[in-house]
């Protein structure tokens, strides 16, 4: 638990952070530090320098503008979990954020750090994919937007370039007739998701007009459950339809499943069906 020597720089703006990233070889951005610092303390990561973005005011906080909820990359999990604005505009985010780690972790960890770290067992990537969130980043060549579906590429690998700083996550606000829910099997030690599911359903005239479902914890990146979505669309969301649609998640999880001491790949796949069903059941109830 004693990290190797590391140089430390503090950025006071996004522009400065981008500059520092360019200037310092083998550098890492430091936000809440809840993924990076443990790796450094175990000497599994030994970057030459850290660029602390933790005090950049312009990328903190939550704002709701019409149909879009803009969450600054440095917003902590505890802020997400307790935000009234989010609770009404995008309630699945506080629901998931409240299940991250423990209070100490939630007080330091940030949405930007969490998404950028792209741990497949993490909660917010799955939610971001189900919501169709947009990730905003600034780099040496200016600003760009990346949709969540393209952002998570592989195990701890994202579409962010080395020189880029994530600035915000834009979430679509909940619409009339929509319900959203997150269901998670907690790992008893790490509190990460063994398996999780995020579901957003839109009900019109008693039938599912649109559905978006993502599964976390099973594959190396959040999996979009398009077979489940297809089986829901056009149907009344009763228990039978939900159960049937949930079973279709097997078709959406064709890649290699994560397999560890606690849970095998086979079990994770089986649990994906259970947690998709649970998330859909709650989401359908909430859609009313």
């Amino acid at each position, binding site marked *: 638990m004693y990290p190797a020597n590391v140089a430390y720089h503090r950025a006071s703006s996004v522009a400065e952070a981008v500059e520092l990233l360019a200037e310092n070889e083998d550098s890492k951005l430091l936000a809440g530090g809840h993924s990076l610092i443990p790796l450094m303390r175990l000497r599994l990561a030994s970057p030459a320098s850290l660029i602390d973005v933790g005090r950049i005011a312009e990328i903190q906080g939550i704002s709701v503008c019409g149909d879009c909820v803009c969450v600054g990359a440095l917003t902590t999990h505890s802020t997400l979990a307790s935000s009234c604005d989010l609770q009404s505009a995008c309630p699945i985010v506080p629901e998931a954020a409240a299940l991250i780690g423990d209070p100490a972790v939630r007080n330091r960890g940030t949405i930007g750090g969490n998404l950028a770290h792209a741990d497949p067992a993490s909660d917010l990537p799955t939610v971001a994919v189900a919501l169709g969130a947009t990730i905003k980043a600034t780099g040496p060549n200016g600003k760009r937007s990346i949709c969540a579906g393209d952002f998570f590429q592989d195990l701890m690998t994202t579409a962010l370039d080395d020189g880029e700083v994530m600035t915000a996550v834009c979430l679509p606000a909940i619409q009339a007739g929509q319900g959203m829910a997150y269901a998670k*099997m907690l790992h008893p030690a*790490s509190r990460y998701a063994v398996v999780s599911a995020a579901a957003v359903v839109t009900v019109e005239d008693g039938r599912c007009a649109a559905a978006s479902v993502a599964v976390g914890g099973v594959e190396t990146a959040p999996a979009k459950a398009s077979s489940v979505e297809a089986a829901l669309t056009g149907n009344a969301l009763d228990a039978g339809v939900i159960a049937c649609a949930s079973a279709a998640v097997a078709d959406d999880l064709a890649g290699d499943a994560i397999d560890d001491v606690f849970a095998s790949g086979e079990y994770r796949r*089986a649990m994906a069906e259970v947690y998709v069903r649970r998330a859909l059941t709650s989401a359908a109830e909430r859609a009313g």
Partner: protein
Amino acid sequence: MTTRIFSSGIRRREDPRLITGKAAYTDDVTLPGMAYAAILRSPHAHARINSIDTSAAAGMDGVLAVFTGDDINAEFNPVPCAWLVPNSDLKTPAHPPIASGVVRYQGDAVAVVVAECRYAAEDALELIDVDYEPLPVVIEPDKAMCDDAPQLHEDAPNNQAFHWVMTGGDVDAAFDDADVVVGERILHQRLIPNAMEPRSAVAQFTQATGELTLWSATQNPHIARFLTHVVTNLPEHKIRVIAPEVGGGFGSKIPYYADEVIAIFCAIKTGRPVKWTATRSEGYQSTIHGRDHVEDVELAADSDGNITGIRAKVWAGMGAYLSTAAPGIPTILHGLMYSGAYDIPNVKADVYGVFNNAVPVDAYRGAGRPEATFLVERLVDKLANELDVDPADVRRKNFIPAFEDGHDVATGLTYDSGDFAMSLDMATEKIGYQELREEQKRLRAEGKYIGIGITTYSEICGLGPSQVAGAVGFQGGLWEGAIVRFHPSGKVNVAIGSSPHGQGEETTFAQIISHELGVDVDDVNIMHGDTSQTPMGWGTYGSRTTAVSGAAVAIAARKIKDKATQIAAHLLEAAVEDIDYENGNFFVKGSPDQAKTIQDIALMANVAWDMPEGVEPGLEASTFYDPPNFTYPFGTHIAVVELDKDTGRIDVNRYLACDDCGPQINPMIVEGQIHGGVVQGIGPVLCEGAVYDEDGQLLTGSMLDYALPRADMFPEIETSSSVTPSPHHPLGVKGVGETGTIASTITVYNAVMDALKPFGVEKLDMPLTPEKVWRAIHANGKEN
């Protein structure tokens, strides 16, 4: 009217400093000129060390010295094993503080760096070049004894550390004549103790005086001092061991570790005080583990359900070396408890201690007794299943009848007092057992599955008579010293040889003094943990501190009372036999208004202006209490669990603990001990366990993977108690530190098996993770 202080749940005086971060632990010790040690640990579970090159590390800025096994082993003796169980063909291969030639577990020390700061020491570790030649590895204890198993020690053929057999009655005849035999293979996975404070040592050697001071996170500083002498050859009177605040131990801070020895060696060689503190993940690889049993167990009974015999063959993993008390755990503290709460005439334990390529195993809360209670209570439940009778009824049928002053069981122990039927009745009534069984039936019809588990246990604690300690090979005594000293102002210091580290004896021992002598609890200070300030004692473990050290405190207080009576008689110009005592006042019978208080007498004794003839000044007494027998707490625990059929997850819905530890000095502390013990015992059932891969790599190497039980896993724990005093103890108390752990593992395990009964599942290895349960209920097909 004075407040009754004995049996009062007053708040623990230890807590304000502990919960506000004001307590000072070993790692808080900072000395002028202090240097820091970091230990290089083997990444291999078994390997030959062909060469070690420390030159680059030694040349690094800030590095004072680098030592290897060749350096330390030339001057110090091996780390000793101190429980040499007799008649067991015990082998004690040398355990060098730093490995020489061969490493035998992942985490075995290979070298140590001493540097100006810990960061520099850690950097230097990365520069040490070790050429390892990996050797074959064996982890499972039963496989380690197979013919073709890799061998750990030349002087322990077949990896056998010992073979211990205990028989009572004629167990073979009991099985030959049995109507019913039930059996099972039970695995107790390795557990990793997680005291909140990691282990730590600071060593300071003063060349000019030849004095060594060792601050150490230990549960038994006097043992640590003695063993420091044994290893270093430094004279014992020049060694001082201080256990400052110790942040929990659960047994893991009983052993004398190589790491302390390394810190001492570094301090002597560098002439600087040296601190070493384990990181959490380092602790996982170097602090003892618990359990690691493979057991084949059987029970014989007649067709009416009368139990006639129990026998077990046990392979107990010892790890790569024998830790301080290791051989005594699966033998004396395990096999002798096979009678449980039952009148079983024939018992046999056949125990192999086995070396395997893993962290050494030693006492972990309950130490041998949770495993014993587990196998007895598991077999009793299996018998009930086999005969299709209620598990509570089969227990009632076989209980030892109530006894107040001794009952001999087939294992050779004499239980002190117990009333098991009363305990079971109390628990079943309190939880509404019959209603629960009916609810279970109703829920099953709805496709919901709850399970009910019952345990009635008897446990052995208050270790113990020193003569017995000697007879069973424990290389020490098990008595405790106490000194009670009144100051002129009437305030009291009590120095004890035991070493509380979270159990609350600073509070409860003050309650004993207050109860015995009528002084305010706040006027009593309990001193412990420093060998230079406390009388000899053998430490805090085995639920013995209140039972043994507390008895010493009570007896010393009674000696004070005797002397105070003499002084009071003199001052009141009366005969000693005419003096009455009540609540700290000494008075002539019938004249309580003319009393001398204990404070009056303390002042007179200290100034000594007017003492009775032949009576020495001072008001101080010391005692060395050697218990005449062990104490045997008992009780009944009942758990209700619920299965989530979709996922295999088990939830504990209710947990009731009815314990009898004799009179309770402080019921709040008793309840706290039970809560902690229960939770610690349930962890291994549901989630907790060390996992090694076949190469001996610890896969659960940090808290990211090693699942400790958490508060949100538990319902409010219900507690209740009965009071059956120990007939031989001055206060009647028995001890309660381990009862929760001893009872809860099997209580919840049996409850889960009860819930899974409709699925035809009879056995699963712990921990019962959701996947394991899910697979079991699917593998066995539909509910029947």
